[in-house]
């Protein structure tokens, strides 16, 4: 997690001194890493790209070249569009609900309240759980007549019980709740780390000048927390675009595709033996994520990353 290091300008490295080391030495030391990276990252990407131009069931020889047909098919495939829109809904909800919620909690737990160490641990605990455990546990809680519905019945709120994971209208929002439950603690910790690095003197000076706590938050905390929040949002966005495991364990993208994501859609295509089409879909997801990530890095993270070499 690199988030906090970018917040203090003093920590930035001086200009590179690599120039003094002979290039061959550099290359020699990089060779093992480059080989691994080439074999397990670059080569598979190139292969996927190649497969994406073929109609291929994974068994036959790779000889049915179809050009861009697989990409056209993805573009016009309503199920893929649905999956993409589900990713976008999760993304928007994450940015506007999950991260602000984590910010609020972080602010609360940064103040001197009783038992804050315990609360921090409690809130962070879900993040430590594996996705599979999270999915299985929440499936049990949200199943028809499961723990949640029984609880609602017990307090007389029978009218509020729902088929949380089986109702196509509802399932995506149930999933968003589970996702938030699992990851808000992580964002909270990032933001807490950012908060703890803010110089105390600024708030002291502000309160001496008679700033209200809102003004102090709005004009001191928030701007100084900017880099941290932008990283938190970045992780949230990338996570939303690549969402797979939690969804797969909890709903398999169902019912009737109502909670599918681009990644579960992709996996379904592999399971159908459509290796060419699935490769094309994977290239589309890769491209989308890359564009979003680069755009975000260039626009939102520009100032934060200055001097790190990540922004040209």
């Amino acid at each position, binding site marked *: 997690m690199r988030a906090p290091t970018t917040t203090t300008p003093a920590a930035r490295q001086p200009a590179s001194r690599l120039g003094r080391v002979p290039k061959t030495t550099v290359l020699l030391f990089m060779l093992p890493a480059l080989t691994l990276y080439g074999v397990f990252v670059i080569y598979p990407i190139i292969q996927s790209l190649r497969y994406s131009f073929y109609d291929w069931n994974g068994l036959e020889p790779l000889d049915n070249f179809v050009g861009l047909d697989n990409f056209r098919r993805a573009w016009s495939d309503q199920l893929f569009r649905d999956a993409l829109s589900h990713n976008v809904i999760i993304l928007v909800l994450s940015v506007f609900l999950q991260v602000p919620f984590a910010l609020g909690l972080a602010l609360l737990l940064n103040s001197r309240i009783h038992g804050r160490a315990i609360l921090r641990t409690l809130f962070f605990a879900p993040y430590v759980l594996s996705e599979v455990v999270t999915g299985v546990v929440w499936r049990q809680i949200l199943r028809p007549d499961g723990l949640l519905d029984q609880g609602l019945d017990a307090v007389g709120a029978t009218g509020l019980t729902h088929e949380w994971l089986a109702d196509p209208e509802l399932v995506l929002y149930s999933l968003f709740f589970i996702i938030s439950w699992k990851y808000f603690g992580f*964002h909270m910790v990032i933001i807490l780390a950012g908060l703890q690095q803010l110089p105390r003197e600024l708030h002291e000076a502000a309160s001496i000048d008679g700033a209200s706590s809102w003004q102090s938050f709005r004009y001191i905390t928030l701007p100084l927390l900017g880099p941290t929040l932008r990283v938190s949002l970045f992780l949230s966005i990338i996570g939303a675009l690549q969402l797979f495991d939690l969804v797969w364990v909890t709903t398999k993208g169902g019912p009737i595709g109502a909670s599918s994501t681009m990644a579960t859609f992709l996996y379904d295509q592999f399971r159908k033996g459509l290796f060419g089409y699935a490769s094309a879909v994977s290239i589309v997801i890769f491209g989308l*994520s890359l564009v979003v990530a680069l755009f975000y890095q260039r626009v939102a993270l520009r100032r934060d990353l200055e001097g790190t070499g990540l922004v040209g």
Partner: protein
Amino acid sequence: MKTTHPSLRRRALVLVAALGLVAAACGSDDDSSSDSAAPATDAATENSTAADSGGDGEAVEIDWWHIQNNDPGLSDWQAMADTYMEANPNVKIKITVMENEAFKAALQTNLQSGDVPDLFQSWGGGGLRDQVDAGLVQDITDASSDFVGDLSEGATSLYQVDGKQYGIPYNASMVGVWYNKDLFAQAGIDAPPETWDELLADVQTLKDAGITPIAVGAGDKWPAHFWYSYLMIRLGGAEAMNQIAADNNFSVPAVVEAGEKVGDLVALEPFQAGFLGAGWDAPDGESGTMASGGAAMDLMGQWAPGAFATQAGVDGAANLPFELGWFPFPTVDGGAGQPTDAFGGADGFAVGKDAPPEAVDFLKFITNQENQETWAADSGLPVNPQAVGAVTDPNMQAVLEGLNNASFIQLFLDQFFTAEVGSQVNDQAALLFAGQTSPQDAADAITATAGG
């Protein structure tokens, strides 16, 4: 949200993107280490074939992949392999056992790398045809001619492509309605329904008695496709089903009307709560609902009673807290199908392209009367008619009778066609159950995928 170091996440995505490829690389690595003796084995096989196919001097290894990962099937097959190896000391059978889904993924990887197991689980149909087209399985028509006739023809024909035999079945499957006799009695229904209209009437009667009529795991989709497909078979009969397969055209009256009949059933709201998200085999799924007496009927294959017993935590279906019954899928008035037309399939083993002749001999061994009796007594339904005496459970006997009397057996549609078309049938069945598509649109969507 998913949160790890972003570049790691990106790499992870790339890895997902290249899933098949990376897996393929790993797979071939595994095998190069374990198969170091393979070239020698192949050579030995060729020699022995040339000299004397029955010779027991040359060492031969058979790589056998099966999916009986639970007892009693697991031990039974180990025992059969041990017995065979004792009688044929030159043969070494290397068994790989996997869970169903894991097996499918691993097999795909091995097939892609051309490293085909000598014997592997198969369901025949479209999947086998793909493997035949890719040259990954072996024509065993001649090698199996001395025993294939001893097995049920309905089952062995599923392992033929263009008239040639590529595998041998060991287990017969047939779908029918499993029902809770106690709940039927409680609702005052004294005989199982014989026609579709009677079934709908019984559904209403059960509902009026406060009983959930039907359990279905529409979240897994294929349990929903059982209803859709069986209605097609009852409406169109063998002729329409064969025509659909020949033309790849599902936009025919039998399919559209089947969709309408599914709609009639769904309109009665006969299913357990949350059926759209439920799977087949889970505590909150179809089998769990039946096992806990939460629903009265379940359209499923002969493996259902075992699953109910597992979910209920009892030893065998006879110990379920209620009495289980079975009846064939009801007939549809005016439908062209016969009451004896059956929907099912047969598990079997396909023979890999490089398998030694001993592999086929081993298939002959496991489908002989004695071993099929063991199979029938412990695990499923025999494909060897001589072994039917070992089936003692009355429900299983009824299923077997249904199979033996079958005038036509339609293989599970999701296995009969290619994986892609099969998935589309399942997807459309789930949409019909959710009331999210029309019968005509569902039929047209399948036709579009099938390319008819």
